[in-house]
Structure formats: C-alpha cells, structure tokens
C-alpha cells in the first residue's frame, strides 16, 4: 500500500548544495519540490498553470547559479522560496498585476526597479506571518485582483465585513514590516 510521506527537505538540499554541478542531486530536489511549490504558487498568486513550470524552473536555475558562485551560504527551503517569490513577483509585475500592492504599505513603488521588487518581496514575506484568513484576503485582493464582493462570496460574509477585515489585515501587515525598519 502506498502511503503519503512529505519529503524531508534538509537532506535533499544538503545533497544538492554539496555539489551544485551534480545533476542527479538537483534533479531529485526539483522533482521532489515541484508539486509542492507548484501548488504553493498557483494557490497564492493565481498564476496561469501554463506559466508555473517556467517560473519554477527559472527560480531553481538562478538559485543553483548562486550556489555554484558561492553567493548563497544557507541552502534551505526558505531561501529557495525567496528565489521563487522573486520569479513570481517579477512575472506578476510584468503582467501589471501588482499595481495596488503598495497600498498595503501606504507608499508608492520605489523608482528603482530593484528596490521596488524588494518592497514587494517584503510585503509578500510579511503576509506569511499573518494569520491564515488575513493572508488569504490580502493575497486575493492585491495579488489576484479580486474585488471585495468576490472575497465576501468565498468567505460567506458581506462586503462591508470584508472591507473591515482588509483594513485590519493591512494594519497588521504594516506593523510586521515597520518592526524591521532601521
């Protein structure tokens, strides 16, 4: 009988990072990670399924290149997720899907593209520190462009209630981000 056991990520990352040129180890890591990361980016960012594979592949290639160059010192799932986020956010930005994201931090996008991406990355990271409902409504609103009415239908609430939740969740997200201001 086949039973379900999620992979233990540390040994896979350790094997891949020991020798960044070891294709077999990277293939094992990619194949193990692929379904999990695919669901992760599809559910949270509303990406087109046909683009998900390309975006993941891009992220993994960049991550591997950094490792080979000795620029990444902590190979881990959390670190790789950072690369995946960069690929996803870049793709969403290319589609102009992140126009309103800056509303969360109440400031316009920085002019410098790198700083702009960093600001969006930090917002995205901060969302993962919120409770599940906040993370869901903020992503639905600002990453997937859904209206309050659509979110209200999914949550089984009225639109006014969703607007209140959105306001509170934005506040909490700002608190997390400002906690790390210099």
């Amino acid at each position, binding site marked *: 009988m086949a039973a379900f056991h999620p992979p233990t990520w540390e040994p896979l990352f350790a094997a891949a990072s020991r020798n960044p040129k070891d294709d077999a180890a990277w293939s094992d890591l990619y194949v193990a990670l692929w379904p999990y990361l695919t669901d992760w980016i599809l559910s949270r960012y509303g990406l087109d399924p046909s683009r998900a594979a390309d975006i993941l592949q891009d992220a993994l290639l960049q991550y591997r290149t950094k490792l080979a160059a000795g620029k990444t010192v902590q190979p881990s799932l959390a670190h790789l997720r950072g690369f995946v986020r960069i690929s996803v956010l870049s793709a969403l930005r290319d589609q102009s899907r992140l126009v309103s994201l800056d509303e969360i931090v109440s400031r316009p996008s920085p002019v410098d593209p790198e*700083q702009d991406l960093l600001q969006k990355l930090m917002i995205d*990271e901060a969302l993962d520190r919120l409770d599940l409902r906040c993370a869901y409504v903020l992503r639905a609103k600002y990453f997937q462009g859904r209206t309050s009415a659509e979110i209200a239908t999914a949550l089984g609430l009225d639109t006014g209630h969703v607007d209140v939740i959105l306001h509170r969740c934005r506040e909490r997200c700002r608190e997390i981000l400002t906690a790390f201001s210099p």
Partner: protein
Amino acid sequence: MSNSYKGWELLYQMPGGTKDPFQDPYGPTSECFSSNDVVRMFELGALSRDVSHLSRCKECRERVERFGEVTAPELAQSMYRSVPWWRKASQGFRTPQPAFAALASPQTLVYVPTTCSVNLAQGSVDTIRMQLITRRVDDLRRCTLRLEGPVTANAGCLVAGSEPYPWVEFHNVQASDDVIRELRLHNRITELVFLKVGETEQRLCLKGTSNIEFEGI
C-alpha cells in the same frame, strides 16, 4: 520598512519564518487544503472527506483543477538529466524544449469511493467506479481509458451524471497474480492503481493515480 536586503533576512528570523510552508491550509476556510494535502490527493487519490470539502469549496475545486493542468514533472526531470544545468544557464534556456514537452501530460484527481471485490477463482474484479476531478471531460469522451498496475482494464467508459465532475466505470477488470496471492493471505489490501487516458498508449492526454481497496470473494 527597511530598504536593504538585511530587512528581508530579518523577516526570516521572525516566528513563522522558517516553518514548513506546505503544511498550512490555504483558502477561505480552515478546512481548505494545504499543499501537502493537494500533493497527497494527486499521488494517492482523494478521500471521502476531501471530496466532501471539494463539493462545498469553490476555491479548492479551482485550485485542484488548476494544479492538474500543470504538466512539468517529466519535463523537468528529462531536461535536467539530459542538459547540463550550466550549459542550459549559459545558453539562456528559459522555456521548455519541444522535444521533451511531448512526455508531459495533465493529471486528474481520482476518487474511488468503494472497496472493489476480486473473484479469487477467476482473477476478475467487479466493476471499478471512479470520479475524476478534472476540467478535461472532452478528453474523456474522445480517448481510451485504461487502468494499469495491480489491476488492468482497457476500456473504461464515461458515465453521464448530474455531478459536477464525471464518473467513469471499468468493466472486465483483471487482477494481477500478486493481488490474488495477497488476497488469499489477507481479507483486504490497498494498492496503487494508475489511470491513463490517451489516444494511444504512448500519447496520453490525462493521467491519474489512486489507492484502491480490494477484498477477495
């Protein structure tokens, strides 16, 4: 908010920064699936409680349908094993190569609600009925449905129904010698069965896997 990468690194040190991102449910309700749930369902088939939630949650239905549409595992594996990564990186390969794309096929989530009876004397299996949670109903009408693994069947048929997702039935199913041998030792066994939907054996348009429970009669 910090304007340096240091801020991003600090975020990782916050509570929750290093937790397994695939364990948390994600969706409008606390019963929504985690990534682990989604992967488990596609590997081993959906359980009754999964289908029950799917019937109530539009978000999770769309999530599962979209996940099934992504077609990359074989593609990625083939590319990584055939093209050295540094060569690929240096040549700027960013898109899947057509030669490998033919290997990939979408997946369907499979739900088998009942235990299947195996006639131990003849090695035949009663009808296997399964629900396929997929958008690709047209492919099911057009292509041949086969079961492989511990049981084999060559001509599944689509059963029209009022359900949101199609049901298919397999008749004339044959159990393998291993299954019959195991069922002579145990009352019930659970085995992983492979569903393949395609115009030919090589050209699949849909595939799925599910645990199925068998009992001997």
